[in-house]
Protein backbone atom coordinates (compact mmCIF):
# COMPACT_ATOMS: atom_id res chain seq x y z
CA UNK A 1 0.00 0.00 0.00
CA UNK A 2 2.72 2.44 0.96
CA UNK A 3 4.73 1.33 -2.03
CA UNK A 4 1.85 2.20 -4.33
CA UNK A 5 1.52 5.62 -2.75
CA UNK A 6 5.26 6.20 -3.03
CA UNK A 7 5.24 5.28 -6.70
CA UNK A 8 2.23 7.51 -7.32
CA UNK A 9 3.63 10.59 -5.62
CA UNK A 10 7.13 9.97 -6.91
CA UNK A 11 5.91 9.69 -10.48
CA UNK A 12 3.86 12.86 -10.05
CA UNK A 13 6.88 14.70 -8.67
CA UNK A 14 9.17 13.57 -11.48
CA UNK A 15 6.55 14.25 -14.14
CA UNK A 16 5.89 17.76 -12.91
CA UNK A 17 9.65 18.39 -12.58
CA UNK A 18 10.17 17.38 -16.19
CA UNK A 19 7.33 19.68 -17.15
CA UNK A 20 9.01 22.57 -15.31
CA UNK A 21 12.12 22.12 -17.43
CA UNK A 22 10.46 21.26 -20.72
CA UNK A 23 7.72 23.91 -20.83
CA UNK A 24 8.50 27.07 -22.73
CA UNK A 25 5.81 29.23 -21.17
CA UNK A 26 6.99 30.25 -17.69
CA UNK A 27 3.47 30.30 -16.28
CA UNK A 28 3.05 26.61 -17.10
CA UNK A 29 6.44 25.97 -15.51
CA UNK A 30 5.20 27.69 -12.38
CA UNK A 31 2.02 25.61 -12.28
CA UNK A 32 4.04 22.41 -12.72
CA UNK A 33 6.33 23.50 -9.90
CA UNK A 34 3.29 23.87 -7.65
CA UNK A 35 2.47 20.26 -8.60
CA UNK A 36 5.97 19.21 -7.53
CA UNK A 37 5.55 20.94 -4.19
CA UNK A 38 2.20 19.34 -3.49
CA UNK A 39 3.45 15.85 -4.33
CA UNK A 40 6.50 16.41 -2.14
CA UNK A 41 4.17 17.45 0.68
CA UNK A 42 2.32 14.15 0.26
CA UNK A 43 5.66 12.32 0.45
CA UNK A 44 6.49 14.16 3.65
CA UNK A 45 3.21 12.97 5.16
CA UNK A 46 4.21 9.41 4.21
CA UNK A 47 7.52 9.98 5.99
CA UNK A 48 5.69 10.87 9.24
CA UNK A 49 6.46 14.59 8.96
CA UNK A 50 2.98 16.19 8.86
CA UNK A 51 4.07 19.55 10.23
CA UNK A 52 6.75 19.94 7.57
CA UNK A 53 4.24 18.93 4.91
CA UNK A 54 1.78 21.60 6.02
CA UNK A 55 4.53 24.21 6.23
CA UNK A 56 5.71 23.19 2.74
CA UNK A 57 2.26 23.84 1.31
CA UNK A 58 1.80 27.10 3.19
CA UNK A 59 5.28 28.54 2.49
CA UNK A 60 6.29 27.13 -0.90
CA UNK A 61 3.04 26.50 -2.72
CA UNK A 62 1.09 29.21 -1.00
CA UNK A 63 3.52 32.09 -0.69
CA UNK A 64 6.69 31.73 -2.75
CA UNK A 65 4.92 30.50 -5.88
CA UNK A 66 2.24 33.17 -5.49
CA UNK A 67 5.07 35.71 -5.56
CA UNK A 68 6.60 34.07 -8.64
CA UNK A 69 3.27 33.95 -10.49
CA UNK A 70 2.64 37.58 -9.54
CA UNK A 71 6.00 38.58 -11.02
CA UNK A 72 5.30 36.57 -14.20
CA UNK A 73 1.96 38.29 -14.61
CA UNK A 74 3.26 41.75 -13.81
CA UNK A 75 6.21 41.54 -16.17
CA UNK A 76 4.05 39.88 -18.82
CA UNK A 77 6.66 37.25 -19.61
CA UNK A 78 6.25 35.53 -22.94
CA UNK A 79 7.35 32.16 -24.18
CA UNK A 80 10.94 31.40 -24.93
CA UNK A 81 11.92 31.56 -28.58
CA UNK A 82 14.49 29.32 -30.17
CA UNK A 83 17.96 30.01 -28.99
CA UNK A 84 20.80 31.18 -31.22
CA UNK A 85 22.87 28.50 -32.99
CA UNK A 86 25.93 29.46 -30.98
CA UNK A 87 24.33 28.16 -27.78
CA UNK A 88 22.42 25.18 -29.17
CA UNK A 89 24.85 22.76 -27.61
CA UNK A 90 23.54 23.50 -24.12
CA UNK A 91 20.59 21.11 -24.19
CA UNK A 92 22.55 17.96 -25.12
CA UNK A 93 25.26 18.97 -22.64
CA UNK A 94 22.71 19.26 -19.88
CA UNK A 95 21.23 15.87 -20.72
CA UNK A 96 24.64 14.20 -20.76
CA UNK A 97 25.65 15.80 -17.46
CA UNK A 98 22.34 14.76 -15.91
CA UNK A 99 22.97 11.20 -17.03
CA UNK A 100 26.45 11.24 -15.52
CA UNK A 101 25.11 12.56 -12.23
CA UNK A 102 22.34 9.96 -12.04
CA UNK A 103 24.93 7.25 -12.74
CA UNK A 104 27.09 8.51 -9.88
CA UNK A 105 24.14 8.65 -7.48
CA UNK A 106 22.99 5.18 -8.51
CA UNK A 107 26.44 3.83 -7.75
CA UNK A 108 26.40 5.42 -4.31
CA UNK A 109 22.93 4.15 -3.56
CA UNK A 110 23.73 0.60 -4.59
CA UNK A 111 26.75 0.48 -2.33
CA UNK A 112 24.81 2.03 0.56
CA UNK A 113 22.16 -0.62 0.11
CA UNK A 114 24.75 -3.31 0.66
CA UNK A 115 26.11 -1.76 3.85
CA UNK A 116 24.56 -3.10 7.05
CA UNK A 117 24.03 0.18 8.87
CA UNK A 118 20.55 1.14 7.64
CA UNK A 119 17.95 1.13 10.38
CA UNK A 120 14.43 0.03 9.68
CA UNK A 121 11.62 2.47 9.40
CA UNK A 122 8.82 2.05 11.85
CA UNK A 123 6.24 4.74 12.37
CA UNK A 124 8.18 7.48 14.05
CA UNK A 125 6.84 10.27 16.17
CA UNK A 126 9.56 12.80 15.57
CA UNK A 127 7.44 14.74 13.14
CA UNK A 128 4.75 15.89 15.50
CA UNK A 129 4.45 19.58 16.13
CA UNK A 130 5.31 19.20 19.76
CA UNK A 131 8.69 17.59 19.22
CA UNK A 132 9.61 20.09 16.51
CA UNK A 133 8.55 22.98 18.70
CA UNK A 134 10.43 21.82 21.75
CA UNK A 135 13.59 21.16 19.74
CA UNK A 136 13.31 24.48 17.93
CA UNK A 137 13.06 26.50 21.11
CA UNK A 138 15.58 24.69 23.26
CA UNK A 139 18.40 23.03 21.41
CA UNK A 140 18.22 24.98 18.13
CA UNK A 141 17.33 28.39 19.46
CA UNK A 142 20.29 30.14 17.85
CA UNK A 143 19.48 29.08 14.27
CA UNK A 144 15.90 30.12 14.91
CA UNK A 145 16.88 33.62 15.97
CA UNK A 146 19.37 33.98 13.14
CA UNK A 147 16.67 32.93 10.69
CA UNK A 148 14.39 35.66 11.96
CA UNK A 149 17.12 38.24 11.38
CA UNK A 150 17.67 36.76 7.93
CA UNK A 151 14.00 37.32 7.14
CA UNK A 152 14.26 40.91 8.33
CA UNK A 153 17.24 41.41 6.00
CA UNK A 154 15.25 39.93 3.14
CA UNK A 155 12.31 42.26 3.76
CA UNK A 156 14.50 45.34 3.86
CA UNK A 157 16.50 44.21 0.83
CA UNK A 158 13.46 43.45 -1.29
CA UNK A 159 11.87 46.79 -0.49
CA UNK A 160 15.06 48.67 -1.29
CA UNK A 161 15.48 46.93 -4.63
CA UNK A 162 11.94 47.24 -5.84
CA UNK A 163 11.37 50.87 -4.95
CA UNK A 164 11.05 53.27 -7.85
CA UNK A 165 14.05 55.61 -7.80
CA UNK A 166 15.89 53.01 -5.79
CA UNK A 167 19.23 51.38 -6.43
CA UNK A 168 18.76 50.37 -10.05
CA UNK A 169 17.23 53.03 -12.25
CA UNK A 170 14.80 52.31 -15.06
CA UNK A 171 16.40 52.84 -18.44
CA UNK A 172 14.69 56.10 -19.44
CA UNK A 173 15.33 57.59 -16.04
CA UNK A 174 19.01 56.66 -16.30
CA UNK A 175 19.26 58.27 -19.74
CA UNK A 176 17.78 61.43 -18.40
CA UNK A 177 20.45 61.79 -15.72
Amino acid sequence: MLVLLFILFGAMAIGCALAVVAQRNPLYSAISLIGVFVSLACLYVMLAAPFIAAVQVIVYAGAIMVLVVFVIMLLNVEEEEHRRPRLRFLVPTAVVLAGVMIAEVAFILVTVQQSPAIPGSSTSDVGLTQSIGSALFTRYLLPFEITSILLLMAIVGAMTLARRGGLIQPRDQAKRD
Partner: protein
Amino acid sequence: MDTQTVIDILLKFVAITVAFVVVLFVVAYTVLAERRVLGFIQGRLGPNRVGPGGLLQPFADLLKFILKEDIVPDKSTRFVYFLAPVIATMAALMTMIVYPFGPEIRIPFTDIVIPLVVAHFDIGLLYVLGVTSVGVYGIMLAGWSSNNKYSLMGGLRASSQMISYELALGLSLIGVILLAGTLDLAQIVELQSGWHGFRWFIFFHPLGFVIYLIAAIAETNRVPFDLPEAETELVAGFHTEYSAMKFALFFLAEYINMFTVSMLATTLFLGGWNVPFAEDIFGRGTFLFGLVSAIGFLLKVIFFLFLYIWLRGTLPRFRFDQLMNFGWKILLPFALLSIFITATLIFLFPNLF
Protein backbone atom coordinates in the same frame (compact mmCIF):
# COMPACT_ATOMS: atom_id res chain seq x y z
CA MET B 1 -4.07 -4.86 1.53
CA ASP B 2 -6.39 -6.61 3.93
CA THR B 3 -10.13 -6.26 4.08
CA GLN B 4 -10.07 -4.06 7.13
CA THR B 5 -8.10 -1.38 5.27
CA VAL B 6 -10.43 -1.61 2.28
CA ILE B 7 -13.48 -1.26 4.52
CA ASP B 8 -11.90 1.72 6.25
CA ILE B 9 -11.18 3.41 2.94
CA LEU B 10 -14.72 2.81 1.71
CA LEU B 11 -16.16 4.19 4.93
CA LYS B 12 -14.01 7.28 4.50
CA PHE B 13 -15.34 7.74 0.99
CA VAL B 14 -18.89 7.52 2.31
CA ALA B 15 -18.09 10.02 5.05
CA ILE B 16 -16.56 12.45 2.54
CA THR B 17 -19.56 12.13 0.26
CA VAL B 18 -21.96 12.81 3.11
CA ALA B 19 -19.93 15.83 4.21
CA PHE B 20 -19.83 17.24 0.68
CA VAL B 21 -23.55 16.75 0.17
CA VAL B 22 -24.32 18.50 3.45
CA VAL B 23 -22.03 21.37 2.50
CA LEU B 24 -23.47 21.74 -0.98
CA PHE B 25 -27.01 21.81 0.35
CA VAL B 26 -26.19 24.38 2.99
CA VAL B 27 -24.38 26.52 0.44
CA ALA B 28 -27.19 26.31 -2.09
CA TYR B 29 -29.69 27.45 0.49
CA THR B 30 -27.30 30.15 1.69
CA VAL B 31 -27.51 31.67 -1.78
CA LEU B 32 -31.28 31.72 -1.53
CA ALA B 33 -31.17 33.01 2.05
CA GLU B 34 -28.86 35.81 0.99
CA ARG B 35 -31.18 36.97 -1.71
CA ARG B 36 -34.20 36.92 0.58
CA VAL B 37 -32.51 38.49 3.59
CA LEU B 38 -30.98 41.18 1.41
CA GLY B 39 -34.42 41.76 0.06
CA PHE B 40 -35.85 42.22 3.54
CA ILE B 41 -33.05 44.60 4.47
CA GLN B 42 -33.64 46.59 1.33
CA GLY B 43 -37.40 46.68 1.82
CA ARG B 44 -38.43 44.20 -0.87
CA LEU B 45 -39.18 40.50 -1.10
CA GLY B 46 -36.56 38.19 -2.47
CA PRO B 47 -37.32 35.34 -4.85
CA ASN B 48 -40.44 33.60 -3.62
CA ARG B 49 -42.06 32.13 -6.71
CA VAL B 50 -40.32 28.83 -7.28
CA GLY B 51 -41.70 26.33 -4.83
CA PRO B 52 -43.25 27.24 -1.48
CA GLY B 53 -41.69 30.53 -0.43
CA GLY B 54 -38.95 30.18 -3.03
CA LEU B 55 -37.43 27.03 -1.52
CA LEU B 56 -36.78 25.36 -4.87
CA GLN B 57 -34.92 28.39 -6.24
CA PRO B 58 -31.44 26.78 -5.97
CA PHE B 59 -32.54 23.97 -8.25
CA ALA B 60 -33.86 26.46 -10.76
CA ASP B 61 -30.52 28.28 -10.63
CA LEU B 62 -28.65 25.03 -11.10
CA LEU B 63 -30.73 24.17 -14.11
CA LYS B 64 -30.08 27.60 -15.58
CA PHE B 65 -26.33 27.24 -15.11
CA ILE B 66 -26.25 23.82 -16.72
CA LEU B 67 -28.28 24.82 -19.73
CA LYS B 68 -26.55 28.13 -20.45
CA GLU B 69 -24.22 28.47 -23.40
CA ASP B 70 -20.59 28.01 -22.48
CA ILE B 71 -18.58 30.84 -24.01
CA VAL B 72 -14.80 30.48 -24.18
CA PRO B 73 -12.87 33.60 -25.20
CA ASP B 74 -10.84 33.09 -28.32
CA LYS B 75 -7.36 34.12 -27.30
CA SER B 76 -7.40 32.81 -23.75
CA THR B 77 -4.88 30.26 -22.55
CA ARG B 78 -7.16 27.26 -22.62
CA PHE B 79 -5.57 24.92 -20.11
CA VAL B 80 -5.25 27.56 -17.42
CA TYR B 81 -8.71 28.90 -18.25
CA PHE B 82 -10.28 25.54 -17.50
CA LEU B 83 -8.02 24.84 -14.54
CA ALA B 84 -8.78 28.01 -12.57
CA PRO B 85 -12.38 27.31 -11.41
CA VAL B 86 -11.36 23.72 -10.63
CA ILE B 87 -8.59 24.92 -8.33
CA ALA B 88 -10.89 27.43 -6.65
CA THR B 89 -13.61 24.88 -5.95
CA MET B 90 -11.21 22.14 -4.94
CA ALA B 91 -9.42 24.34 -2.43
CA ALA B 92 -12.77 25.47 -1.02
CA LEU B 93 -14.08 21.93 -0.60
CA MET B 94 -10.91 20.34 0.73
CA THR B 95 -11.04 22.14 4.04
CA MET B 96 -14.35 20.54 4.87
CA ILE B 97 -12.91 17.33 6.18
CA VAL B 98 -11.23 18.47 9.37
CA TYR B 99 -14.15 20.12 11.11
CA PRO B 100 -15.81 18.21 13.95
CA PHE B 101 -19.54 18.42 13.32
CA GLY B 102 -20.34 16.88 16.66
CA PRO B 103 -19.13 14.51 19.35
CA GLU B 104 -19.11 10.79 18.85
CA ILE B 105 -22.61 9.58 18.20
CA ARG B 106 -23.66 6.18 19.34
CA ILE B 107 -26.45 4.86 17.16
CA PRO B 108 -29.31 3.80 19.45
CA PHE B 109 -29.90 0.09 20.00
CA THR B 110 -26.51 -0.76 18.53
CA ASP B 111 -22.91 -0.46 19.61
CA ILE B 112 -21.63 1.43 16.62
CA VAL B 113 -19.87 4.68 17.53
CA ILE B 114 -19.41 7.13 14.70
CA PRO B 115 -17.05 10.07 15.17
CA LEU B 116 -18.55 13.08 13.44
CA VAL B 117 -15.31 14.26 11.89
CA VAL B 118 -14.12 12.88 8.58
CA ALA B 119 -10.36 13.14 9.09
CA HIS B 120 -8.83 13.50 12.47
CA PHE B 121 -5.21 14.57 12.22
CA ASP B 122 -3.10 16.51 14.59
CA ILE B 123 -2.28 19.43 12.30
CA GLY B 124 -5.86 20.27 11.39
CA LEU B 125 -5.52 24.02 11.73
CA LEU B 126 -2.34 24.20 9.63
CA TYR B 127 -4.02 22.11 6.96
CA VAL B 128 -6.88 24.61 6.76
CA LEU B 129 -4.45 27.52 6.45
CA GLY B 130 -2.47 25.69 3.77
CA VAL B 131 -5.47 24.85 1.64
CA THR B 132 -6.76 28.41 1.93
CA SER B 133 -3.39 29.62 0.63
CA VAL B 134 -3.72 27.39 -2.43
CA GLY B 135 -7.17 28.82 -3.11
CA VAL B 136 -5.58 32.12 -4.16
CA TYR B 137 -4.36 30.48 -7.37
CA GLY B 138 -7.84 29.94 -8.70
CA ILE B 139 -8.46 33.67 -8.73
CA MET B 140 -5.05 34.68 -10.06
CA LEU B 141 -5.07 32.19 -12.90
CA ALA B 142 -8.66 33.11 -13.76
CA GLY B 143 -7.74 36.76 -14.06
CA TRP B 144 -4.69 36.02 -16.18
CA SER B 145 -6.10 33.45 -18.53
CA SER B 146 -9.09 35.48 -19.65
CA ASN B 147 -6.85 37.64 -21.83
CA ASN B 148 -8.73 40.71 -20.69
CA LYS B 149 -7.11 43.73 -19.08
CA TYR B 150 -9.96 44.23 -16.65
CA SER B 151 -9.96 40.59 -15.59
CA LEU B 152 -6.21 40.73 -15.03
CA MET B 153 -6.50 43.83 -12.86
CA GLY B 154 -9.38 42.30 -10.93
CA GLY B 155 -7.50 39.05 -10.46
CA LEU B 156 -4.33 40.77 -9.27
CA ARG B 157 -6.27 42.97 -6.87
CA ALA B 158 -8.28 40.08 -5.47
CA SER B 159 -5.26 37.86 -4.97
CA SER B 160 -3.12 40.59 -3.39
CA GLN B 161 -6.02 41.33 -1.03
CA MET B 162 -6.30 37.66 -0.14
CA ILE B 163 -2.63 37.15 0.58
CA SER B 164 -2.46 40.33 2.65
CA TYR B 165 -5.32 39.33 4.91
CA GLU B 166 -4.10 35.74 5.23
CA LEU B 167 -1.34 37.07 7.47
CA ALA B 168 -3.72 38.74 9.89
CA LEU B 169 -5.89 35.61 9.82
CA GLY B 170 -3.01 33.33 10.71
CA LEU B 171 -1.73 35.62 13.43
CA SER B 172 -5.12 35.93 15.09
CA LEU B 173 -5.30 32.16 15.22
CA ILE B 174 -2.00 31.91 17.08
CA GLY B 175 -3.72 33.21 20.20
CA VAL B 176 -6.16 30.30 19.98
CA ILE B 177 -3.27 27.86 19.54
CA LEU B 178 -1.62 29.33 22.62
CA LEU B 179 -4.81 28.85 24.62
CA ALA B 180 -5.41 25.32 23.39
CA GLY B 181 -1.88 23.99 23.19
CA THR B 182 -2.74 21.86 20.18
CA LEU B 183 -3.44 22.23 16.48
CA ASP B 184 -6.05 19.48 16.45
CA LEU B 185 -9.51 20.93 15.84
CA ALA B 186 -11.37 18.13 17.62
CA GLN B 187 -9.15 18.63 20.69
CA ILE B 188 -9.75 22.38 20.60
CA VAL B 189 -13.49 21.80 20.72
CA GLU B 190 -13.07 19.33 23.59
CA LEU B 191 -11.09 21.89 25.54
CA GLN B 192 -13.91 24.40 25.29
CA SER B 193 -16.46 22.30 27.15
CA GLY B 194 -17.18 22.98 30.77
CA TRP B 195 -18.19 26.05 32.82
CA HIS B 196 -21.53 26.01 30.96
CA GLY B 197 -20.24 27.80 27.93
CA PHE B 198 -17.91 30.31 29.55
CA ARG B 199 -14.85 28.38 28.50
CA TRP B 200 -15.35 29.31 24.88
CA PHE B 201 -12.23 30.94 23.53
CA ILE B 202 -14.05 34.07 22.50
CA PHE B 203 -14.06 35.16 26.15
CA PHE B 204 -10.31 34.65 26.49
CA HIS B 205 -9.22 36.08 23.16
CA PRO B 206 -11.86 38.64 22.10
CA LEU B 207 -9.55 40.92 20.12
CA GLY B 208 -8.39 37.91 18.15
CA PHE B 209 -11.99 37.02 17.39
CA VAL B 210 -12.73 40.45 15.96
CA ILE B 211 -9.52 40.41 13.91
CA TYR B 212 -10.27 36.93 12.67
CA LEU B 213 -13.75 37.95 11.60
CA ILE B 214 -12.52 40.99 9.67
CA ALA B 215 -9.70 39.04 8.04
CA ALA B 216 -12.10 36.24 7.14
CA ILE B 217 -14.49 38.65 5.43
CA ALA B 218 -11.56 40.01 3.43
CA GLU B 219 -10.35 36.49 2.57
CA THR B 220 -13.67 35.52 1.05
CA ASN B 221 -13.97 38.76 -0.94
CA ARG B 222 -17.23 39.82 0.66
CA VAL B 223 -18.57 43.29 1.38
CA PRO B 224 -17.03 45.58 2.55
CA PHE B 225 -13.93 44.08 0.91
CA ASP B 226 -15.45 42.98 -2.35
CA LEU B 227 -13.94 45.57 -4.67
CA PRO B 228 -12.39 42.97 -6.98
CA GLU B 229 -15.71 41.44 -7.87
CA ALA B 230 -18.30 44.15 -7.43
CA GLU B 231 -20.56 44.82 -10.37
CA THR B 232 -19.75 48.50 -10.58
CA GLU B 233 -15.99 48.02 -10.58
CA LEU B 234 -13.94 46.49 -13.39
CA VAL B 235 -17.00 44.86 -14.95
CA ALA B 236 -17.15 41.71 -12.84
CA GLY B 237 -13.50 41.39 -11.87
CA PHE B 238 -11.73 38.13 -12.43
CA HIS B 239 -14.77 36.14 -13.48
CA THR B 240 -15.87 38.47 -16.26
CA GLU B 241 -15.14 36.03 -19.05
CA TYR B 242 -16.61 32.97 -17.37
CA SER B 243 -20.11 31.81 -18.19
CA ALA B 244 -22.43 28.98 -17.23
CA MET B 245 -20.96 26.11 -15.31
CA LYS B 246 -17.50 27.60 -14.75
CA PHE B 247 -19.02 30.73 -13.30
CA ALA B 248 -21.23 28.52 -11.17
CA LEU B 249 -18.06 26.87 -9.84
CA PHE B 250 -16.58 30.24 -8.87
CA PHE B 251 -19.83 31.31 -7.28
CA LEU B 252 -20.00 28.02 -5.40
CA ALA B 253 -16.37 28.34 -4.32
CA GLU B 254 -17.03 31.78 -2.84
CA TYR B 255 -19.99 30.58 -0.80
CA ILE B 256 -18.21 27.43 0.31
CA ASN B 257 -15.33 29.64 1.45
CA MET B 258 -17.83 31.66 3.46
CA PHE B 259 -19.16 28.48 5.01
CA THR B 260 -15.67 27.19 5.76
CA VAL B 261 -14.61 30.37 7.45
CA SER B 262 -17.80 30.43 9.52
CA MET B 263 -17.19 26.85 10.58
CA LEU B 264 -13.63 27.68 11.58
CA ALA B 265 -14.86 30.65 13.62
CA THR B 266 -17.43 28.45 15.33
CA THR B 267 -14.93 25.70 16.06
CA LEU B 268 -12.21 27.92 17.39
CA PHE B 269 -14.05 30.71 19.14
CA LEU B 270 -17.61 29.69 19.87
CA GLY B 271 -16.92 26.24 21.23
CA GLY B 272 -17.79 24.12 18.21
CA TRP B 273 -20.50 21.65 19.07
CA ASN B 274 -20.64 22.57 22.78
CA VAL B 275 -24.16 23.60 23.66
CA PRO B 276 -24.14 25.15 27.18
CA PHE B 277 -26.40 22.90 29.24
CA ALA B 278 -26.59 19.84 27.02
CA GLU B 279 -24.19 17.81 29.08
CA ASP B 280 -26.26 18.06 32.25
CA ILE B 281 -29.53 17.29 30.52
CA PHE B 282 -28.53 14.47 28.25
CA GLY B 283 -25.22 13.09 29.42
CA ARG B 284 -22.25 12.50 27.18
CA GLY B 285 -22.14 9.72 24.70
CA THR B 286 -25.85 9.35 24.15
CA PHE B 287 -27.53 9.80 20.84
CA LEU B 288 -29.58 12.82 21.84
CA PHE B 289 -26.52 14.63 23.13
CA GLY B 290 -24.81 14.08 19.79
CA LEU B 291 -27.84 15.25 17.87
CA VAL B 292 -28.32 18.38 19.96
CA SER B 293 -24.62 19.20 19.67
CA ALA B 294 -24.62 18.82 15.90
CA ILE B 295 -27.71 21.01 15.59
CA GLY B 296 -26.09 23.56 17.91
CA PHE B 297 -23.02 23.61 15.69
CA LEU B 298 -25.11 24.21 12.60
CA LEU B 299 -27.04 26.98 14.31
CA LYS B 300 -23.84 28.78 15.25
CA VAL B 301 -22.56 28.49 11.70
CA ILE B 302 -25.85 29.82 10.37
CA PHE B 303 -25.51 32.78 12.73
CA PHE B 304 -22.17 33.64 11.14
CA LEU B 305 -23.61 33.29 7.65
CA PHE B 306 -26.42 35.62 8.64
CA LEU B 307 -23.79 38.06 9.90
CA TYR B 308 -22.13 37.98 6.48
CA ILE B 309 -25.40 38.65 4.71
CA TRP B 310 -26.27 41.41 7.17
CA LEU B 311 -22.94 43.11 6.52
CA ARG B 312 -23.53 42.88 2.80
CA GLY B 313 -26.79 44.70 3.15
CA THR B 314 -25.58 47.53 5.31
CA LEU B 315 -21.98 48.51 4.64
CA PRO B 316 -20.42 50.36 1.68
CA ARG B 317 -17.23 49.02 0.21
CA PHE B 318 -13.61 50.00 0.71
CA ARG B 319 -11.47 51.49 -2.00
CA PHE B 320 -8.51 49.33 -2.86
CA ASP B 321 -5.78 51.43 -1.33
CA GLN B 322 -7.83 51.90 1.82
CA LEU B 323 -8.25 48.13 1.93
CA MET B 324 -4.53 47.37 1.65
CA ASN B 325 -3.71 50.15 4.08
CA PHE B 326 -6.12 48.70 6.60
CA GLY B 327 -4.81 45.18 6.20
CA TRP B 328 -1.13 45.93 6.58
CA LYS B 329 -0.94 48.99 8.77
CA ILE B 330 -3.86 48.51 11.14
CA LEU B 331 -4.95 44.88 11.24
CA LEU B 332 -1.52 43.26 11.33
CA PRO B 333 -0.21 45.28 14.32
CA PHE B 334 -3.46 44.64 16.19
CA ALA B 335 -3.13 40.91 15.52
CA LEU B 336 0.39 40.96 16.93
CA LEU B 337 -0.92 42.92 19.91
CA SER B 338 -3.60 40.28 20.50
CA ILE B 339 -0.99 37.52 20.57
CA PHE B 340 1.03 39.54 23.04
CA ILE B 341 -1.96 40.13 25.32
CA THR B 342 -3.07 36.52 25.28
CA ALA B 343 0.44 35.23 25.88
CA THR B 344 0.84 37.60 28.83
CA LEU B 345 -2.47 36.48 30.31
CA ILE B 346 -1.54 32.82 29.97
CA PHE B 347 1.81 33.50 31.59
CA LEU B 348 0.32 35.42 34.52
CA PHE B 349 -2.64 33.13 35.24
CA PRO B 350 -1.59 29.64 34.19
CA ASN B 351 -4.15 27.75 36.22
CA LEU B 352 -7.04 29.71 34.80
CA PHE B 353 -6.44 28.35 31.31
